[in-house]
């Protein structure tokens, strides 16, 4: 594992998200109402809508374009819709956020 610092938990509002630009594209880092943190692709599997702009509820986000609901934990679409986005390991230590690309790099290699 190699953790990369990306900012502070306090930089993301509760029930909100912010983006990180990476060589693998844009990821959305979510903070839930109970301060859990998730990072997933900022592209809805439906029509590529920016998930970071959606409404966060529980551990899910509703896409702003056509209301697909994506699970932040699994990256899968919930309900009747079928689709999945990439997830990225993310952790909080002393209020700082870290993500880990090593799993992704291995996949790419």
């Amino acid at each position, binding site marked *: 594992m190699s953790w990369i610092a990306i900012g502070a938990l306090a930089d*993301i509002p509760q029930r909100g998200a912010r983006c*990180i*630009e990476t060589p693998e594209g844009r990821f959305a880092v979510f903070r839930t109402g109970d301060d859990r943190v998730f990072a997933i692709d900022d592209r809805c599997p439906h*029509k590529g809508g920016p998930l970071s702009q959606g*409404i966060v509820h*529980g551990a899910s986000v*509703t896409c*702003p374009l056509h209301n697909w609901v994506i699970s932040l934990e699994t990256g899968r679409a919930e309900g009747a819709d079928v689709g999945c986005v990439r997830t990225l390991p993310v952790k909080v230590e002393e209020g700082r*956020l870290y993500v880990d*690309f090593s799993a992704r790099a291995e996949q790419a290699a």
Partner: protein
Amino acid sequence: MTEKLVIIGNGMAPGRMLEHLLDAAPGRYEVTIFNAEPRVNYDRIMLSPVLSGEKDYEQIIIHGDGWYIKNGITLYKGHKVTAIDRVAKTVTSEHGVAAPYDKLVIATGSVPLILPVPGNELPGVLSYRDLDDVKAMLLAAQSRAKAVVIGGGLLGLEAAAGLQARDMDVTVLHLMPTLMERQLDPVAGYMLQRELEGRGIQIITKAQTKAILGTRYVEGVALEDGRVIEARLVVMAAGIRPNAWIGREAGLAVNRGILVDDTMRTSDPDIIALGECAEVGGHVYGLVAPLYEMARVAAAHLTGDASARFIHNDTPTKLKVTGIDLFSLGDFADGDDREEIVLRDAAAGVYKRLVLKENRIIGTVLYGETADGAWFNDLRKRQADISDLRDTLIFGQAYQGGAPLDPMAAVAALPDDAEICGCNGVCKGKIVSTIAAKGLTSLDDVRAHTKASASCGSCTGLVEQVMKLTLGDAYNPAAVQPMCACTPLGHDDVRRLIKAKSLKTIHAVMQELEWKTSCGCAKCRPALNYYLVCDWPGEYADDYQSRFINERAHANIQKDGTYSVVPRMWGGVTSAKELRAIADVVDKFAIPTVKVTGGQRIDMLGIKKEDLPAVWSDLGKAGFVSGHAYAKGLRTVKTCVGTDWCRFGTQDSTGLGIRIEKFMWGSWTPAKVKMAVSGCPRNCAEATCKDVGVVCVDSGYEIHFAGAAGLDIKGTEVLGLVKTEDEALEVIVALVQMYREQARYLERIYKWTKRVGVEEIRRQVLDDAERRRAFYERFVYSQKFAQVDPWSERVSGLHKHEFRPLDAVGMAQAAE
């Protein structure tokens, strides 16, 4: 020949009697009613919900004016009868109207007990009997001042809860050691006291009132023990007594009430008395069920059925305070010949007590969980021997016979003669047979035909279960569509409860209304946020994370994740300076598309989110503010050039459009609101397909609303014609405020209108000047907090995080 029937009083008992009379013998009597109150017959049981804000007066009317006209009944409103001449057989009102009678019905109700203490006539001392009392209390409640309610019985506690719901600081003074001691045992009384205290109502028991203090207006209440409680409003709810003076004046036999036999006849065979003013078999009554029974008996005798008799029956008591479940019935005093079964669950706030005598239930007190009240009452009425059920009796009907039954099965198991509606004495069999005979399918139908759940409404759940049993799948109670999967409540119920329970945060709504999810979903959160913004202007802090992205970013998201920006152009009018500023912004930020919109604005499309604050900053320097093209709020007011330029223009349509837009911009609404003002009936601004439109004519301004030209196409309805611009503005603002307060989130004006009716809207905002003014003023107040330009706020740094990425991770880092 028709006989003349005169009725003194127009409360619920004579109203019910007339219904029976008109059913059994229409046309037999020529009916004249004298009502001391200046209004029609309304449901007095529902005064408490009116006081607390859960219902309007209009919703509790039993017989509207049309009913009297249709049935040929003469109703003198505001006429108090001052004399009965039994020899000439006439009655005379205080305004000098005299009416001859063949049969006379006295139904004068009751009067409140006013404590004989000094100061009891000071202004600010009220009783709690009729709509005028409620209106006076509501007026006093506007001051948010301190109130004292004297009397901790049913009426007093409902008054206290209602005033508290209206933000008054309420103290209840009760003479006895525990609340509602006539209906509750000390334990339940104590639990009730704790619950009410938990809600912020102060309760002083064993409080003997010595005097009401004050010089010109009430200032407080002094107790015998020396304490003084400050108050600007004192409500006397210490009891009622029959209003029997007219009977006494007329020489009828009177004890506590006007004495009647079990056929409701007084000592004069041509005079009947019923309701709270009557005394029968040593009892006087204050609950509606026996009063309705009197009405039935009286009507039977008036239509020649001599067999009907009034029989005394204990009536269950329920407290109508939202969130408090309480049921009491029969005799629950301790005694050597009695046994009791008690269940307590302090944590859940449940207390149940059954009082038994010779293995039969004689009394019941239920607190916190009252669903089995009807079943216990049924066992009591049938004097059923409960020896076999004894071990599990207290757990209720669901636990009889092994496995717990579901509530439907419990209702299915009730016998046909089990009482479902206590107020109206309607049993299960009656509901089932009426549904079948009349082909009823909705709750309103059942209420109309059987009266079940038509009075206090607390048996509504039971009635619905009976309907479901009878109709099976044909009954769809979900005519109320839940807001979303997080709650079974519909939008209207949620809106009502937000007001009634003073819920002022999303968290409070979810907690109090028992949301099934921890923080809602993308459907309910924006709706709740809107309802709270609308209902508590200046108090509620907008929950930014509960808004759709467009309202969070104050721009319109496009399919590729970029945004479009529409600055406000008042009335669609612009200038060279504004156009130059827009051109400069387009060049500077390389904005790919510029387009003119249908609402007479300029739209810049394809702007990166990160650029939004800088775009707004440049636009702001040229004097632009947000055009709210993204908002569930006022969008645009489209205009034509009117009298400024047009040879046909009749009024200054451009000026009026700009005036409306400047007055109303920034307001949030359930769904977007688009308006237009046309200067003549040629209607170049296309006002007749807008949410709200004005068509100017020579004689003034024709106000239109409820048009649509999107998914649906619909011409507008005409609300009415007004003469001046000021009037036009007031009516439009009131209309939009009514829509803001009453519509469901995302419901456009035309859909809302279809649901509530053009007539109803016209009545509230056009015909009723007082109500219109109140709508208008509430809108003006809320604009104080809404008219802030969101773009300049964000240019100054608000919600900076929204427009910037958190971080960028380089290739080298990611590859490590």
